């Protein structure tokens, strides 16, 4: 559009709001332009209040910032988008950092507990152990000790950070991949904690419960869809 856009503020607000719902910038700009073109066409057709002069739509709107119906419509749309943006921020605060925090706390507790186990009290068996015919079958790749354990622990940290990073990408496919990684990762931790809870429910059942909540929250986040009008 040549010249100053009298609806520039609304357009910016629209684009920001639509993008906050995970739409890429190009698509958000297209949605905003299509809706604003509709508003301008209605003003030009006299369906929305026009200004005192019969000049161009831009002139009318620029000269009449108090145009009631247009302003109300834009404000309603704007407030709706602002609410959605705030809600999304809270969802992010409540999900991603919470899951990350759980992960780091879990890793730390696991490591410390493992170190305490060296005295062979066998109170906290933190390896993945199956006892069959009196023989322990240990899966060392799933125990946080030694070289394998270190690699596993750091891989999980990198995985979680990578997933979170992807989640903050503007493009929705990346965000979906990041969220899927977090779902898988939280699910794995839930299953691991659940298994340990069979042996030490007092200690691991709450942890398994926390991860169950994390999985649930992430899955709910996964299924939250864009409003249809913003879908492309």
């Amino acid at each position, binding site marked *: *559009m*040549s010249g100053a856009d009298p609806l520039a503020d609304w357009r910016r607000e629209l684009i920001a709001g639509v993008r906050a719902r995970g739409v890429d910038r190009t698509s958000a700009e297209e949605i905003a332009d*299509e*809706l604003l073109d509709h508003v301008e*066409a209605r003003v030009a*057709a006299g369906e929305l209040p026009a200004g005192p002069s019969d000049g*161009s739509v831009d002139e009318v709107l620029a000269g009449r910032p108090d145009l009631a119906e247009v302003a109300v419509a834009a404000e309603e749309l704007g407030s709706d988008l602002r609410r959605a943006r705030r809600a999304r921020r809270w969802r992010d605060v409540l999900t991603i950092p919470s899951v990350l925090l759980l992960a780091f706390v879990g890793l730390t507790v696991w490591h410390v507990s493992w170190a305490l186990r060296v005295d062979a009290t066998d109170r906290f068996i933190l390896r993945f152990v199956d006892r069959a015919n009196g023989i322990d079958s240990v899966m060392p790749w799933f125990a946080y000790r030694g070289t394998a354990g270190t690699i596993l622990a750091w891989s999980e940290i990198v995985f979680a950070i990578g997933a979170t990073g992807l989640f903050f990408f503007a493009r929705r496919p990346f965000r979906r991949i990041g969220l899927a990684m977090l779902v898988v990762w939280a699910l794995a931790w839930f299953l691991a904690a659940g298994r340990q809870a069979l042996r030490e429910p007092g200690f691991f059942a709450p942890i398994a419960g926390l991860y169950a909540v994390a999985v649930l929250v992430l899955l709910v986040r996964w299924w939250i869809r864009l409003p249809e*009008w913003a879908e492309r």
Partner: protein
Amino acid sequence: MSIDSKLLTGSMGLLLLDVLAKGESYGYAITAHVRDASGGRFEFKEGSLYPALHRLERDALIESFWVERDGARRRKYYRITAAGEAELKARQRSWFEFTAGVNGVLGAER
């Protein structure tokens, strides 16, 4: 006389395809055409028009393109595709069958 909005929503795809089968058009013009052709009975709101258009586009029944205009905001036009024309014929047949059935029951057909 008020018309049940669910009836209009249910037939919106058919109406949009029919309008676009007559020629490419854009959001507001589609709304105005439907309003005029229906004698003011049908009035599409933005909140239902654009989702419906985007759904049809996603289903490849229509396609869109942008037109730059001097001194004015660019405008998005829609046009029907070959698949859309086939779908329109199918929906028209279905609609006529449906209305014939309803009219028959109501005794509107003599």
